[in-house]
């Protein structure tokens, strides 16, 4: 009974979440008719981006009471209902934290129109940014969070949680001491949390939890060995492709956690250095992951922010990924040629072969079949769902729910399978990044990059791609990507020809493939090194840079070639 209640309780929760997300995506249709003429307008910042949450007041006297008040919406628009008895002088006063105040006087003709019952459009008002102490504090908190994550001083989640808590601490306890310490309030902070991302990741975690115990990865790796017939030059690309495709459909970290142990066993059985297979595998995982929306956390962030669908990623990035993979395979064959071509390598002892065969069993065929059916359905919904405005998060939650109801696993085990720490990491990361966005740091960076590239789209593509690739080698690519999204959004809005979202694809390529540049560049690298070390095969920082950085340059350059062809040549 208890189990039944829990199963259906989770089902009901997930279904409700799906419905909430589905309805939220459709937007509100109801519009109330204003009872009186309106004074309307739009507030934007100096980068022509709408300013949300600004207080707009209609007044007649400088110190007098406001005749009407409104708060700007997410599109920066406001609508003030004009009172019936209008004075001869009217002005619109705009104020918002982190911006200079502004006052717009209405003309006599405008006031007459209002008296005649006609609405008045004030137009666009640009509010200049104001650098306050909160700006420096928010920036410091963000940088400190990046440092704590990069140095491994604190767990990612703890670092982001600490950052978010400090933002609130300064906002709520600092504001009474000095108004300019206010960064943002809790309600505003929650608006920066992208729930599509959270629910999509949560849904995929449940699907992965079912797949991870089925033995499919071990079976695939063993089949790769069988298919290659022990020829190492062939085994290498097959394993890279298997790993890459699995990374695109699930995620890099999961794939490498499950592929690394079996790859080590195959390598040792064949008498070769496991790093000759592991390094190409993890690099392939970082490269191919970006071909789908769900392949990397950075793509999930980018897709949700820029409204780039599963299909868009597939169509616009896969050819570039294929090109990069061809380059990566050739590079790996060259770099590990001594291992691959050494005489006698590839022969396997009968005892070890028996052990490998033992390992390469599908342990839960029933679960695997069901996961395959549901997984196929999810892919179809990811591909065709955009036609009915079905959000990927809804598809993921529905798929996870279907799988749970069909398989009926131990529900407590499934709840444990959701990596809540990662979800908390994303929520608190969104808050910290929201903090620097709120105080104007992102705008400042965006303006700087905008000034650097001017209206040159090709230069912008190069800057975004290589800047993200190089920075992703030293700082965690998830917070970096989250911070770069509004910057790229600004560049997309301001550079002629960038409306096709090409710069978001550049960010996707740079932030994911940049992970190949160093051991700390991607979580998949870290877990691979962790497991390899436990097999007595340490992957050092220096070793990774030596093998990975040239691969970064090669793969990013090849992907860049495709982006230039796709968006500049083929797009006409």
């Amino acid at each position, binding site marked *: 009974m208890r189990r039944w209640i829990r199963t259906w309780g989770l089902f009901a929760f997930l279904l409700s979440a799906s419905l909430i997300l589905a309805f939220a995506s459709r937007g509100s249709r109801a519009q109330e008719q204003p009872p009186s003429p309106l004074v309307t307008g739009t507030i934007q910042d100096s980068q022509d981006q709408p300013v949300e949450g600004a207080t707009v007041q209609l007044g007649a006297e400088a110190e007098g009471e406001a005749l009407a008040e409104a708060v700007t919406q997410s599109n920066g628009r406001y609508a003030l209902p004009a009172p019936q008895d209008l004075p001869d002088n009217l002005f619109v006063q705009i104020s918002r934290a982190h911006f200079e105040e502004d006052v717009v006087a209405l003309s006599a003709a405008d006031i007459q129109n209002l008296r005649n019952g006609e609405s008045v459009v004030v137009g666009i008002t640009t509010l200049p940014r104001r650098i306050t102490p909160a700006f420096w504090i928010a920036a410091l908190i963000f940088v400190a969070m990046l440092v704590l994550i990069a140095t491994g001083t604190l767990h*990612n989640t703890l670092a982001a949680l600490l950052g978010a808590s400090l933002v609130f601490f300064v906002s709520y306890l600092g504001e009474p001491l000095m108004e300019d310490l206010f960064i943002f309030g809790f309600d505003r902070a929650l608006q920066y949390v992208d729930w599509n991302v959270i629910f999509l990741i949560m849904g995929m975690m449940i699907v992965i939890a079912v797949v991870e115990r089925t033995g499919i990865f071990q079976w695939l790796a063993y089949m790769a060995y069988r298919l290659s017939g022990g020829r190492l030059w062939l085994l290498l690309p097959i394993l890279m492709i298997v790993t890459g495709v699995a990374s695109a459909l699930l995620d890099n970290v999961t794939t490498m956690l499950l592929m690394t142990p079996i790859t080590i*066993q195959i390598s040792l059985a064949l008498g070769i250095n496991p790093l000759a297979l592991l390094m190409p595998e993890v690099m392939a995982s970082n490269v191919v992951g970006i071909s789908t929306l769900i392949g990397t956390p950075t793509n999930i962030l980018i897709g949700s922010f820029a409204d780039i669908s599963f299909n868009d990623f597939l169509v616009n990035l896969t050819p570039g990924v294929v090109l990069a993979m061809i380059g990566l395979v050739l590079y790996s064959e060259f770099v590990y040629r001594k291992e691959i071509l050494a005489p006698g390598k590839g022969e396997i002892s009968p005892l070890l072969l028996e052990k490998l065969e033992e390992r390469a069993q599908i342990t839960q065929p029933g679960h695997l079949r069901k996961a395959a059916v549901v997984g196929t359905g999810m892919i179809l919904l990811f591909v065709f769902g955009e036609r009915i405005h079905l959000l990927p998060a809804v598809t993921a939650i529905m798929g996870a729910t279907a799988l749970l109801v069909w398989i009926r696993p131990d529900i407590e085990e499934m709840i444990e399978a959701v990596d809540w720490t990662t979800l908390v990491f994303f929520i608190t990361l969104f808050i910290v990044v929201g903090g620097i966005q709120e105080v104007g740091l992102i705008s400042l960076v965006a303006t700087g990059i905008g000034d650097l590239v001017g209206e040159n789209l090709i230069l912008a593509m190069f800057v975004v791609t290589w800047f993200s690739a190089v920075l992703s080698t030293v700082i965690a690519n998830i917070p970096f990507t989250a911070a770069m999204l509004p910057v790229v959004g600004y560049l997309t809005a301001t550079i002629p020809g960038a409306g096709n979202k090409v710069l978001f694809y550049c960010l996707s390529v740079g932030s994911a493939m940049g992970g190949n540049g160093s051991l700390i560049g991607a979580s998949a690298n870290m*877990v691979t090194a962790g497991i390899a070390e436990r097999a*007595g095969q*340490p992957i050092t920082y220096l070793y990774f840079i030596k093998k990975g950085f040239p691969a970064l340059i090669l793969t990013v350059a090849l992907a860049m070639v495709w982006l230039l062809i796709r968006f500049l040549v083929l797009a006409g």
Partner: protein
Amino acid sequence: MKKILCATRGGEASIRTQDAVIAMAKKEGATIVFLYVVDVEFLRLTARGVRPDVVATELERMGEFLLAMAVERAAAQGVEADMIVRRGPLTQALEEVGQQLGADAVAFGRPAGVDSSFSLSDLEKLAARIEEDTGIETYIL
């Protein structure tokens, strides 16, 4: 017959240790029990991806494979060997298994340069602690 417990992983450094233990066992007419200890501490600082117990199970299988190689190596040199895989902290696993088996000696490999996860002084401390806690003789080979 004397019993030597040898904690090992894989890799070149471990193979050197295994060879040294095999030679020692041969000389003293002892049997060897190779031990692989699973710990998933490295997951602490990264995105989890997969449940730690699933990773631990995979590492156990990998450990069994690595130990099978060591056992095969010992057999090829005419030394009888067995293997055990355990989860948990290394010191605790070594002490527990050593006592359960009634091992006469515990052996581990000398750190293999800067890439090793242990320093020589760490190993010496570990050896001293095991000797103190269990009375089993320890060797750093």
